């Protein structure tokens, strides 16, 4: 007696789509934040903040909807993960709070100390949020101490949450978003600043590449069970191959002076990582390190079939509107950053 597998897989895919949307969109917002202190002049910092100014709030909604969707579709996974990751999630919240308000408050006064404080907060918050997201993903891939009752057997300690593997993935996330953000900035800036951003694209790509190799090796050697699952779905290796091609295309596109193509490639890369992350979990929502029989499978954590169908209607009704007006709004703010009367 449980929902049919199809609708559950559909919702797992929707969650993947929402997470991908968040990572690709807020990825460049957070990336711009990570890079924020690389410029020193006030005018340039305004350019950076205004490159994402109109868009970051709408992009963050993807995370909120992702959270709401997990709550609605897989409540037992939502309950176990959010309570289990209590402290990291609280830290993520503080980071996201400061990321948002620092942009709002920064320009409201002229004093150097005020502006420096909010600049530092913007950068630190963006970096911290990204790192924490990566660490949480790393912990999920590794598996979590899920007990028989569907909760963690204890709250993970500091060294569990920030052990070698999750920290590596956290740093990898920071490098990825920094790269993604720098390509976005290259598209949005002009003149002397843009020339400097060009250099950042190469630097961040280099760091990203190194961490990609390290993370991949680390994942394949210490998390064999997740990778072995790929044996059940061999077509997933095609995604891995396509991902490698996308990654290789980034430097190629940059050197061919096709930055938009590079941005598409880095977006595809992020999408591929999200997809692969989902596949290491599938068909579970949470993998247990205590005992495989305690895994929170899709079936065990899903809502009723009625709820999943109703929510599918909500999603199918709502998301086309969302995509349409989001695209329209992005189009309104196309082109280079123009710092004007209404900017941050």
């Amino acid at each position, binding site marked *: 007696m449980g929902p049919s597998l199809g609708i559950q897989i559909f919702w797992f895919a929707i969650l993947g789509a929402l997470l991908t949307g968040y990572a690709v969109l807020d990825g460049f917002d957070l990336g711009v934040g990570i890079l924020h202190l690389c410029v020193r002049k006030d*005018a340039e910092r305004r350019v950076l903040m205004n490159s994402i100014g*109109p*868009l970051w*709030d*709408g992009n*963050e*909604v993807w*995370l*909120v*909807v992702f*959270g*709401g969707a*997990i*709550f*609605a579709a897989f*409540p037992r996974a*939502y*309950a176990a*993960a*959010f*309570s*289990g990751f*209590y402290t990291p*999630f*609280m830290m993520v*919240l503080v980071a*996201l*709070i*400061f990321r*948002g*308000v620092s942009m*709002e*408050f920064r*320009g*409201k*006064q*002229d004093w150097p100390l005020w502006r420096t404080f909010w600049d530092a907060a913007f950068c630190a918050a963006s970096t911290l949020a990204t790192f924490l997201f990566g660490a949480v993903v790393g912990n999920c891939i590794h598996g979590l101490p899920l007990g028989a*009752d*569907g*909760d*963690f*057997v*204890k*709250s993970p300690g500091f060294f569990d949450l920030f052990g070698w593997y999750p920290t590596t993935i956290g740093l990898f996330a920071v490098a990825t978003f920094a790269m993604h953000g720098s390509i976005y900035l290259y598209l949005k800036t002009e003149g002397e600043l843009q020339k400097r951003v060009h250099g950042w694209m190469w630097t961040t790509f280099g760091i990203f590449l190194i961490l990609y190799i390290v993370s991949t090796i680390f994942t394949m050697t210490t998390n064999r069970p997740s990778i072995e699952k790929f044996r059940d779905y061999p077509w997933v290796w095609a995604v891995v191959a396509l991902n490698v091609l996308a990654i290789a295309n980034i430097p190629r596109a940059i050197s061919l002076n096709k930055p938009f193509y590079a941005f598409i490639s880095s977006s595809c890369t992020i999408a591929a990582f999200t997809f692969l992350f989902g596949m290491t979990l599938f068909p579970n929502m949470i993998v247990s390190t205590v005992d495989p029989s305690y895994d929170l499978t899709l079936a*065990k954590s899903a*809502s*009723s079939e*009625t*709820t999943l169908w*109703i929510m599918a209607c*909500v999603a199918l009704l*709502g*998301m086309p*509107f*969302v995509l349409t*007006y989001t695209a329209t*709004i992005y189009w*309104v703010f196309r082109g280079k950053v123009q710092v004007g*009367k*209404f900017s941050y």
Partner: protein
Amino acid sequence: MDDPVLTLSRVQFALTIMFHYLFPPLSIGLGALMVLMEGLYLRTGDARYHAMTKFWTGIFAVNFAMGVATGVVMEFEFGTNWAAYARYVGDIFGSALAAEGIFAFFLESGFLAVLVFGWDRVSKRMHFFATLMVSFGSIFSAVWIIIANSWQQTPAGYHLVEHDGVVRAEIVDFWAVVFNPSSMNRLTHVVLGAFILGAFFVMSISAYYVLRRRHLDFARKSFTIALVFGAISSLAIGASGHFQAKTVAHTQPAKLAALEGHYKTGAADLSLFGVPDSEAGRLNYAVAVPGGLSFLVHEDFNASVPGLDQFPKEVWPNVPLVFQTYHVMVGLGAAFIGLTLLGLFFLWRGTLFQKRWLMLVFVVAVVGPYLANQAGWVSAEAGRQPFVVYPKVSWTEDNPPRPRMEMAKGDIFLKTADGLSNRKVVGSDQVIGSIVMFSVVYALLFAVWVYVLNSKIHHGPEEVDKPPPASTKPGDLVEAAARLANPAGFSLTETHRDRPDAQARED
């Protein structure tokens, strides 16, 4: 409450939700007013309405960002601190939250971009459409969260199912969930409360300008629009509150009894003041209208209304807290009606803006709706205790009918204490840590927000050049000449003290 994690988690929820609730109501109220103002601009072409909308948008943007920042916290908090509750009601409560995100958050956050940053990038019509969408998004967001919260108070459209020894509520009828017995009344009430806040906020700042004799044209126009809006909303909310209370009488009689300090079943007085004493089971120092509550509920001064004595003490809420916050809200609501009607009267007489004492009252009065909105919610949620999902109430066939809370196995209800996250996973040290963190962060943000708001108010709206008056009187000619030659902001007719502060250089 002997359980520290329960108390701490409740304190944290109260702290985070009350701080959050400073912001969305203003987004809703001010957003609606901005739609009115920009609509007037489109219709009349008068640039002053345009300047008004721009000014209020600047404040709206900061307020909105605070609302978003503190709102994400709430979504996470259901999972972090109330995991058992999340498992029990995830099907239903989670669905409403997800719908809120898909239908409302994307809409308001997306179009906010055009509203705040798009003045020079889109046509007037497109910008107005964006303002409309942001306002609509904020109200539609309220719809879903109120549906979710109302479902906690009056569950409907569900059935209880057991999986692996864990019981949870699952949707049976989506529309019954949406239109559960209390949702539409409560939604109306909450949105009207937000409209009142928006109105009083605009009136407060406008009255301040009137008192300081600055931006007079802007201030009077803004004040007038807000006054009419506020008066209509204040009257409407009185009616809405009444209908809501009638629903509470039927679905949550213990809550009604606590709201009114009604301990003994029988004809019920409508108390204006009092101090409830739950030990003794009576309302001390009561100033009350005899039979007033009976009349409001049953249209009969002698009708019997169930008292708290119908229910075992363990399901009584904190009666003094519920009673006092409810009375604060109602008292303030009455004051809003009185104040706005008074304002309308003087507006009609043409003397409103000369009454400096009344302008001062309106400057200060903005505290009222903030307080009333919070007090109302405290009353509603504390009145729901000790439950986080309220049991169904059935009525016996007796005369008068007696209420019975259905709390047998197989009935839907959940006590707040049973909604907590697993204590092994979330212990008191973690909750203390997060409470301290939120307190520090929110205190800082509150200070900064007040500071930035104050700064924006002092800066004021941009002056819109008016054509010089058609006149040949000497003073007017000087005025006309002065205004024409005014690029750097000097004026030959206003003193330095009257001038708005020099614009902070943006470039």
